[in-house]
């Protein structure tokens, strides 16, 4: 009899996996119908192309290397020309190649920090929700505490003490500080999943805690975690950009925030709109597109939101 029950959960699991693919197709068709999702995804593809293209200019000519390449004939900021489509910065470096390299940095920082946040947030949220009791209280109080810390200012303090920070250290700190929001949502979801019949069935069938967590609860919270990842990408990109803008970024990396810092500190912001505008527009647009993709995904995951839109 016990054997039977296990078989049944196994079958259920297989079915649910099939469903998962169907869900994905269904979700995708809803997602792509949403104008927000379409525009956001389109923009992201564009930024992805920018990041991919960032490898091309340095191959054409060493003066197009974003950080160290200097045009031998230009030693100051000059407006757009055929040779430099977006002009040059204060020491004759090509702005377009910096902008392309910036896209790469933005994706790298945003996605890796967000991934870390979400892994941490999901793990903590699931443990708190599933285990309950004192572990729950402890983890959630910790979340409260981390939540009120202004991340940017904390990274500033760390860089004051430890000197210029490597880009990966910055990513790590952002990851360590942005998980509480995710873990709260995941915890709530886990609490409700724990009461569902299929978890009960698995437990009666003799599944251990780890099996229940990984096989039955995790697949159900992952979509939500993924949704939060898109929102966390925006905040990670913004924090890195702000840090670089204030002059505490990784000096070996050309990010959009770094470019803005150069315009600002060298006093070119009134003289060189061709230099001031592109990085700011890029940061704002990439944040906006991740945000739009997140909102469109939100609608896929929360049918209530969808019905509301359809009714209108």
């Amino acid at each position: 009899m016990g054997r039977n029950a296990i078989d049944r959960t196994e079958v259920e699991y297989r079915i649910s996996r099939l469903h998962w693919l169907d869900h994905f197709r269904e979700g995708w068709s809803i997602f792509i119908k949403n104008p927000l999702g379409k525009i956001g995804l389109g923009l992201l593809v564009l930024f992805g192309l920018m990041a991919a293209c960032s490898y091309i200019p340095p191959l054409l000519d060493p003066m197009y290397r974003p950080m160290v390449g200097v045009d031998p004939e230009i030693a100051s900021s000059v407006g757009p020309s055929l040779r430099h489509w977006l002009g040059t910065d204060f020491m004759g470096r090509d702005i377009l190649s910096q902008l392309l390299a910036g896209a790469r940095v933005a994706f790298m920082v945003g996605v890796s920090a967000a991934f870390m946040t979400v892994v941490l947030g999901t793990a903590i949220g699931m443990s708190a929700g599933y285990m309950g009791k004192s572990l729950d209280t402890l983890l959630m109080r910790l979340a409260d505490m981390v939540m009120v810390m202004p991340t940017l200012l904390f990274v500033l303090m760390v860089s004051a003490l430890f000197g210029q920070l490597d880009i990966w250290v910055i990513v790590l700190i952002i990851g360590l500080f942005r998980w509480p929001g995710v873990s709260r949502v995941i915890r709530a979801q886990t609490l409700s999943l724990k009461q569902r019949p299929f978890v009960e069935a698995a437990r009666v069938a003799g599944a251990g805690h780890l099996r229940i967590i990984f096989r039955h609860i995790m697949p159900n919270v992952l979509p939500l975690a993924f949704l939060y990842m898109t929102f966390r990408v925006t905040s990670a990109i913004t924090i890195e950009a702000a840090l670089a803008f204030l002059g505490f970024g990784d000096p070996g990396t050309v990010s959009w925030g770094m470019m803005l810092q150069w315009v600002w500190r060298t006093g070119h912001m009134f003289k060189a709109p061709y230099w001031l505008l592109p990085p700011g527009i890029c940061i704002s647009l990439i944040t906006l597109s991740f945000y739009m993709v997140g909102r469109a995904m939100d609608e896929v995951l929360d049918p209530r939101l969808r019905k509301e839109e359809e009714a209108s």
Partner: protein
Amino acid sequence: MDLWKFIVRRLIQVVVIFFVILTALFLLFRLAPGDPVERMVDPTMTPEDAQRLVKVLGLHEPLHTQYGVYLKNFVQGRFGTSFHYGQPVEDIIWEKLPNTILLFTTAIILSALTGIALGKIASWRKGSRVDTWLTIGSLATHTVFLPWLALILIWIFAYRLGWFPITGMISEEVWLDPDAGIWVKTLDVAHHMVLPLGTLFLIHFGSTLLVMRSSMLETLKEDYILTARAKGLTEKAIRNRHAAKNAALPVVTGVGLSLAFSINGGALTETVFTWPGIGRELVFAVSQSDYPLAQAAFLLIALVVLVSNVIVDVLYAYLDPRIRY
């Protein structure tokens, strides 16, 4: 008195959290590479002065005694001497704090009120052109990169059009003029405040609008709205008195949760506009390696965030009688 119990509990929580932050900062400062004495004592001080400061801060003692001295000094409001200014840190901090509070609270309150009012309109006329534009506008202003927005505003309104001063909080010629009355001075500060306030306002009102809009849409589906309609109340009364009041509750929580995030924005705004506030002081202190000042500024900002969070929570509990913790 449930509310009082709740307030006391939240306050105890704040004390505990702040204590942890204090301890974390203490450890960070002692564990970072380099000599903590060099970090807390100005290298240009005379040896006697330096000796005295080392004693006051307890830097010659073992770590656990230092910790005790550190806590005692904090409670008494002593943070050491700023390297850059050569003055006690606490004096500088108290001088800058009101400027930050003035800018920040005005921005938060203004953007919350505008966000609520516009979100109400957007949800009421859902699907109309007004709604679409308001939503797009708030999405765009919500995600724009703050320092860049500040630079653009300076470029357009201060540099090109010359309507507002480029930086600072006061003009010296007005404040040094003995004939200038309090009104002239207030106007001068307000004139300087328009652009930084505008920046913070633009960044914040969008999120409030979006939260208010979706919360209002949710509220409009409630039974009591149907009842209000059935009673024959005017649409305006339903919108303002029945729906909006209840829908505004999540906005309050939203403002509270995003406070830590907004304070980052506040520091950036102050830095770009050289507004003499505590956020700019922190950025400046970090870039100057003025450790005592940076430490105190950070602690104070953390404290402000914590206390405002409690205020928001209490406000929420007061506004919504269903919430009891």
